[in-house]
């Protein structure tokens, strides 16, 4: 038996987790979180597996997954960027920030770059309003992103060294 969790069958990992918690049906959201952690996303097959395991209709699972924006049914990039669209950030120009990030990554919000490096989403207020406008990457907050250079700099930290930067832009205000 191999005890390395990274090498274990992902479905087995998920089942082990489900077996370990009490009140399984009631903890559907917790289970979906764990499943997304294991698989990176929640494809139909994984949702169906959870439905069988919990004896819930798969339509119900699909309904929950499609309701919460945190859950994704598409594979995600290595790094997940979230532009905050909460009120404070919105007032400080998060729409422009979102457009600029989209252009630098070459994708729209909700999509993943071709090299699977970045996925881009939006969130509603992460409570860092003092730093507005903000973007998080893998949960880390990048604040006061007011120029194209600020954004380029923030994203560069997540690119492997030596990768050419995709978007050329001057240090102009966005």
């Amino acid at each position: 038996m191999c005890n390395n969790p990274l090498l274990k069958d992902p479905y087995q990992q998920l089942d082990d987790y489900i077996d370990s918690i009490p009140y399984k049906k009631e903890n559907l959201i917790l289970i979906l979180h764990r499943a997304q952690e294991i698989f990176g996303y929640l494809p139909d097959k994984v949702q169906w597996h959870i439905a069988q395991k919990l004896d819930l209709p798969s339509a119900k699972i699909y309904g929950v997954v499609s309701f919460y924006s945190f859950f994704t049914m598409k594979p995600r990039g290595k790094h997940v960027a979230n532009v905050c669209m909460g009120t404070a950030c919105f007032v400080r120009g998060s729409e422009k920030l979102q457009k600029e990030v989209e252009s630098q990554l070459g994708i729209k919000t909700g999509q993943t770059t071709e090299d699977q490096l970045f996925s881009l989403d939006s969130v509603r207020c992460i409570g860092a309003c003092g730093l507005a406008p903000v973007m998080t990457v893998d949960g880390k907050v990048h604040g006061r992103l007011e120029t194209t250079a600020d954004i380029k700099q923030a994203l560069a930290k997540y690119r492997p060294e030596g990768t050419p930067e995709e978007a050329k832009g001057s240090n102009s205000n966005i």
Partner: protein
Amino acid sequence: MDIQLKINDIPLTVPAGMSILDAARTINIDIPTLCYLNLHEMRLNNHIASCRVCVVEVEGRRNLAPACSTPVFDGMVVKTDTQRAVLGRRTMVELLLSDHPKSCLTCPKNLDCDLQALAADLGVRNITYEGEESEFAIDKSSLAIIRDPNKCIRCRRCETMCNDVQTVGVYSAVGRGFETVVKTAFDLPLHDTSCTFCGQCVAVCPTGALMELDQVDKVWKALNDPTRYVVVETAPAVRVALGEGFGLEPGTIVTGKMVAALRRLGFDRVFDTEFGADVTIMEEATELIHRIEHGGRLPILTSCCPAWVKFFEHQFPDLLDIPSTCKSPHQMLGVLSKSYYAETYGIDPQKITVVSIMPCIAKKYEAARPELGQDPVTPDVDIVITTRELSRMLREAGIHFDHLKEEDFDHPLGESTGAAVVFGTTGGVIEAALRTAYEWLTGKPLENVEFEPLRGMDGIKEAVIPIGKRDFRIAVTHGLGNARTILEKIQSGESHYDAIEIMACPGGCIGGGGQPYHHGNLEILEARANAIYQEDRSKPLRKSHENPAVLKLYRDYIGEPYGEKAHRLLHTSFTKRPKI
């Protein structure tokens, strides 16, 4: 505990916890509703307050309150008819209509639509709101139900019915905000899900978002093809509901008029599914006795209901060996039309088209099951239309239904007994089987043929019926949620029965998904059930094994019930299916 409140200045005392809507109804004040649906007998209560059509003013409350889901409190002052409330309701309907196709004239639900009726009642004369409109693909994958999500108003009655009452769980609200719509798992075509096609979602859908697959034109085509010999058969539950489509009181028995109307439409022979029901009893009662005498697995479960059959194939694949292998009565009548009748009267079975008029949507799917036919490829039943579709066909043909003189079914597949009539309501199949099994097992005549404990609208009915030296433990359930309860008890070994009747639709076939819409009034179902029992009492013969035409069929053609030829023509098999 009771509390006191005032509605439109009228003081009243009602139990605490009651909704404003129910309280108002106790004093005959009607508040319009749309998403709300409370079918107490079916244990369906949809009061999610999503449509906001039932809004009223409550003194001291800033905004309007949805009457369906706001509980009353002591000293509450409610106004249901103020200008603010009335305009509020109209606004809600306008908002709903702003994202609803304006194609009422060509909608199959035209003149039977709750949303349309509401717009008329509330005086909606224009739609002030313009904006984005949903664009969803129409799901025509199944052979029974058509889903047009563009007409969905997100009331979620279908979801409540499918999840809470039927426990099938095919539907769920998916997405959020404007994009929310009721969908299947992973947006699969309905055909690929565990849907049983019971049609109860169609029965409660207030709009045309869920409809039966319309096959009227196929019937017209067959009737107008001179090379086809078109046979029609009608289920017991149709004759006690068809009149509703022509303004007759629920529970009016229209058997004779229905037969006359079908002849006017041009059918070559008008047969009765009840003949098939009598044959079903010959087979099923023999199968039960065979299982008892040969140590077969009990309980035997009835298999007349195609939605129930599909339910156990998906949900209880380990119990596939306990349902009776009998085909359903209309399939039996179909195959007998194309074999026994065709051979007796020298008609080429390839030229016969069998049309079934059914209270049921799942029968459309059933008729298309590949195992329910004979080689070379000819299905037992070619086309199935519902009671609603027949009623429309008769209007299309300009037939004045209530002026027709009563006529009789054609011989020989039109002969039937009272036992076959009661198939149409919950408890009827097992009652019919007991009438025959009793006499066969004891060799004595059964004096009282009415088994009261098996009748009525209780979800699960149980009775112990002594027959000879043996006590028969019988259960009757209707509604698939109740069926699930019983089956789980069998699986766990908690309950033991000898025979169980299961019907997918609450009330049995009289409450079928293809019947005239009840619009939430379940008294209609009771009236239909009473009519069924009345029709049974009016029959000179009330036991299937006394049907002379059925006895002749066995003597001249089939041989022994449950014998070799019977197996080939009248029995079927079931398939394991995944739960999706």
